[in-house]
């Protein structure tokens, strides 16, 4: 088993516990041991609190990284926003002047940031430590014939020099992860667009989502595969809102990747909390009748 400290953040454990459940089901099946962090706080979020004061934002983020340093483990995140904050902190604190400033703050609580724990987005654990083949082998019911449109979102990929996850102009990690489930990834024309959640205008996010959902519809995808809980909200509640606003029928169910993975690995549909979504991925149910091999 490879061990990593788990940084669950706020949105997944508090608003989407079904996603956390799926992660805890899926990772051990791939030889990855989850080590929980005590006393973690919000990352803090890279949109709101960072807008107030970058130095305080860095100090709190560095404290979270210290918790993983105490355990001598690398830290992994399941939310692209947490990845943005923690990866950027790791990157910025390689600068000695900034590190000293932050460590002065940390000294107030008897801590010191050393920079010994790397930050990893959960998809890179799958790719780099489990491998696509192992994922394929862990699948008990391949999702054959399902078309999945992928929404990468922004912070998994960008800024690429800091995130170091994949090529931001032509990524492949999510396509490969979807293929490992036996499903067929589809790249809709607007795959690279942002979900718009951070934008404080009404006009920008709704126009953008309208364009995005239009190209998802063109592909007749069965499912929108999500990797960020913030984007998920925009495609769940947001998809309904955009449909009403523009008087068009958008209805592709968004599903967080790890719920798809856990389902393909054999976790029953009814245990995965999918019935709480506004758009339910009923197309998955037909795979439950597939015989699961003994043993």
């Amino acid at each position, binding site marked *: 088993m490879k061990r990593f400290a788990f940084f669950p953040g*706020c*949105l997944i*454990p*508090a*608003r989407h*516990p*079904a996603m*956390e*459940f799926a992660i*805890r089901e899926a990772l051990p099946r791939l030889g990855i041991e989850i080590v929980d962090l*005590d*006393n*973690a*706080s*919000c990352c*803090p*979020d*890279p*949109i*709101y*609190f*960072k*807008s*107030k*004061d*970058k*130095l*305080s934002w*860095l*100090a*709190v983020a560095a*404290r979270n990284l210290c918790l993983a340093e105490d355990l001598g483990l690398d830290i992994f995140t399941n939310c692209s926003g947490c990845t943005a904050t923690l990866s950027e902190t790791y990157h*910025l604190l390689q600068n000695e002047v*900034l590190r000293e400033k932050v460590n*002065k*703050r940390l*000294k*107030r*609580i008897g801590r010191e940031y050393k920079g010994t724990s790397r930050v990893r987005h959960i998809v890179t654990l799958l790719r780099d430590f489990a491998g696509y083949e192992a994922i394929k082998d862990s699948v008990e019911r391949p999702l054959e014939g399902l078309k999945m449109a992928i929404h990468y979102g*922004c*912070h998994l990929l*960008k*800024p*690429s020099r800091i995130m170091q996850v994949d090529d*931001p102009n032509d990524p492949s990690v999510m396509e490969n992860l979807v293929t490992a489930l036996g499903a067929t990834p589809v790249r809709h024309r607007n795959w690279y*667009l*942002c979900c*718009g959640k*951070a*934008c*404080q*205008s009404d*006009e*920008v*996010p709704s*126009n*953008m989502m309208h*364009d995005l959902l239009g190209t998802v519809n063109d592909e007749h995808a069965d499912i929108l595969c999500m990797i960020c809980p913030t984007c998920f909200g925009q495609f769940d509640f947001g998809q309904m809102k955009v449909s009403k606003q523009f008087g068009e029928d958008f209805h592709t169910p968004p599903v967080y990747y790890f719920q798809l993975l856990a389902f393909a690995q054999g976790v029953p549909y009814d*245990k995965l*909390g999918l019935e709480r979504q506004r758009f339910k991925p009923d197309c998955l149910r037909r795979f439950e009748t597939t015989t699961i091999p003994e043993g």
Partner: protein
Amino acid sequence: MPQKPKDSPSGKNKVARIDFRFRRELAEKIEGDLASFCYQCGACVGDCPATTYGSDFNPRDIMLKVLYGLGDELLGENSILWECTNCYNCHERCPQDVKPVEVIISLKNMLADLGIYPPAVEKVIQTFEKTGRTVPLSDAVNRQREKFGLPPLPEVPMEEIQKLIEPDSEEGEKD
């Protein structure tokens, strides 16, 4: 002293006086100084979703205002800065490593110093400063977690968080 373009927001054919004081103040914010390297190529504009899908937002224009020191046009109620989607495309594209999105966030730090936030933003910040989380704990949250066999979420040690977000004292931190 460079001249402003004729369509400059601050009037026609005037000799520009750059407010370096504003730029120096911005430079005190982390990565706020990067704006100085902007040569106005516009690489940030083409891929900016807030430019494509909105009516007024333009990252090159915001960088130009910073270069001229036109703080008043950026730092007020209903600032255009809040239309940024934080997508980081401009960070990705900028050939000068200006990181326009980071300069924009540094400008928001200046807005925060003035106590100006959109209500939705202020609400999340307050939740974090009170609870250490952006989604606060509640019995309902823990009941949901229980349904999935997940343990209740622990409280965040707020005394540590509060000490960390306390501003540095004027005379600097004691060693």
